[in-house]
């Protein structure tokens, strides 16, 4: 380990804002719009300070008109700007999805590659704080399923800054999903492991590259956002009983780094996928399919720890029961051991 490196711990919210500010300083085309992203700094803190520095032309509050401003982001991007637009809760996609999946995602293809749509759409995901079923979803697969959008979802502040910088510089629409419980907002309860050292100088984390956050030999735990932290906690507990778990943070869903997953499962022979999105037809199934299609030899049937196929309930005991957690991952591992 390097010594005497000054730790500069940031929350994901601060890291996102820092990446945006740094790109706005060097690229006049970058601007931000969305609901409450101006003087308030974003409901989830990820545009804090931007309005003070750049003013209301480039950091503009919108009316509550997602259809219009998502469409406007497409039009501005096609005309040479690089908009960053916020969909406050991913759950709100229902009021504006046409502009996202029919325009933002398809115009490059429909134009034979002649029109570029460099939009960053940042949106909050996840539950766990009893906000009920219209403000707690992840919807990873909903966006990842439809072609034409890149999709990233960081689990820590270092990746958040690097992925945001990469997203802004990308010439394609990038959906940037940030999990509320990892955001570092005290009032949402904060995952401390998401607050990590973030270099001040600008850098990128490549879109489409997973990270092996912990190496291991007995089981591969693949996660995204909150699922990564559940995986890390489970790995610690498994280590206590002598089980060596490898934890992979997908970081990007589109493009999906299938190679890193396949390579890991070839080594461990066991696979558990953790996803706070709904279980069926989702990321967890896609990862297991990736391994199955490659004919990777498995020591046990793969398992998934995902959100059950129900609307997210309000009541604390019901919601907490339904959410993925480390204990469920351990239970999944035990099931694999018993069935081996």
């Amino acid at each position: 380990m390097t010594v005497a490196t000054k730790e500069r711990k940031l929350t994901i919210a601060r890291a996102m804002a820092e990446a945006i500010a740094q790109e706005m300083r060097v690229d006049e085309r970058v601007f931000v719009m969305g609901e409450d992203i101006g003087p308030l700094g974003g409901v989830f803190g990820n545009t804090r300070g931007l309005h003070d520095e750049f003013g209301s032309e480039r950091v503009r509050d919108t009316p509550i008109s997602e259809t219009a401003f998502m469409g406007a982001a497409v039009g501005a991007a096609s005309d040479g700007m690089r908009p960053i637009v916020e969909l406050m809760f991913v759950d709100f996609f229902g009021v504006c999805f046409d502009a996202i999946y029919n325009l933002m995602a398809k115009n490059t293809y429909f134009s034979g590659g002649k029109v570029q749509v460099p939009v960053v759409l940042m949106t909050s995901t996840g539950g766990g704080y009893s906000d009920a079923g219209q403000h707690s979803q992840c919807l990873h697969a909903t966006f990842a399923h439809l072609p034409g959008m890149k999709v990233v979802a960081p689990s820590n502040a270092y990746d958040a800054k690097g992925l945001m910088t990469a997203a802004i510089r990308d010439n394609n629409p990038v959906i940037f999903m940030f999990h509320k419980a990892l955001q570092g907002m005290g009032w949402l309860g904060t995952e401390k492991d998401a607050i990590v050292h973030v270099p001040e100088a600008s850098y990128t984390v490549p879109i489409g590259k997973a990270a092996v956050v912990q190496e291991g030999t007995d089981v591969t735990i693949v996660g995204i956002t909150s699922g990564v932290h559940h995986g890390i906690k489970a790995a610690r507990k498994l280590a206590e009983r002598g089980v060596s778990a490898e934890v992979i943070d997908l970081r990007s869903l589109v493009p999906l780094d299938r190679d890193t997953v396949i390579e890991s499962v070839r080594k461990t022979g066991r696979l558990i996928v953790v996803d706070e999105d709904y279980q069926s037809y989702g990321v967890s199934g896609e990862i297991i399919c990736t391994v199955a299609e490659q004919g990777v030899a498995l020591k046990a049937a793969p398992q998934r720890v995902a959100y059950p196929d129900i609307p997210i309930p309000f009541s604390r005991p019901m919601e907490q029961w339904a959410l993925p957690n480390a204990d469920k991952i351990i239970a999944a591992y035990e099931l694999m051991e018993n069935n081996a």
Partner: protein
Amino acid sequence: MKPNRTQKLWMYEQMHTSRYFEECIEKIYMEGKSPAFNMANGPIPGEMHLSNGQEPCAVGVCAHLEAGDVVTSTHRPHHVAIAKGVDLDGMTAEIFGKKTGLSGGRGGHMHIFDADVNFSCSGIIAEGMGPAVGAALSRQLQKKAGVAVAFLGEGAANQGAFHESLNLAAVWKLPVIFVIEDNAWGISVAKSTSTAIEHNDARAAAYGIPGHYIPGNDPLAIFEVAGEAIDRARRGEGPSLIEIETYRLAGHFMGDAEGYRPDGEKEALFARDPIPKMRQHLIDTESWTEEQDQELVQRSHERVDLAIQFARDSEYPAPEEAMEKVFA
């Protein structure tokens, strides 16, 4: 502002080009589709929405636009594309699904993109409005010349996107003009059945912007009103809403039996065909001669014939090219 002779002749020629283009497409569309009509067959498969009769909306507005101005159009886009100066060869080849099409055959007739003249269209009602607002915002932010025009049908005025876009354009005072081509029918549903007010220009008042209604499908009147609205936008005074009474001389799409039309409506509309009316106007006011007319018509037809020949002669894309251009 009234159009001068050059502008009138430009509009007249574009109307002829557009009409003849649609007449050709109509014939070719039916190739391979009889005796059984199957939309998937023939050299031009898929849905086909013809703009016969709506030419005045396109020419009266686009007469004021330059290549740098942005236009978004609808599922019925050919007349607007032609008036905006879209590459006719590339557009025709795109409609045929050929490799030489503007988008290499990926878009087709409802997804025509010509970045050289800032034209695009799409197949969902009112969908072009947000992008027009965004293009106008881009010009405002970049302090770059140019306006955006969103064309839409009267049915689009009942979409959420319509109201959101008008409000957003107004609150940000953007250089954008919304042009409603009111052809009275949303497929088979009459405007009076779907819309709570007679003319949608009244809805501009809700957003504190000028609203104009232009009766009569008259390119000269459209030219005047659109010119004022576009100049206003260029001066930085914000958006306008224009509703134009126009006529859909064709069905909603090819294959539409149009059983919903009242008896005699089509005949009455053809009696008011804007192209012969414009010719008469030129004869009355510009000493337009039969010889000049034939020359102009022939020129416009030749242009279309060449584009269609280009499209017919072009190769289809290799199927696996479908996998390309998903990302920039």
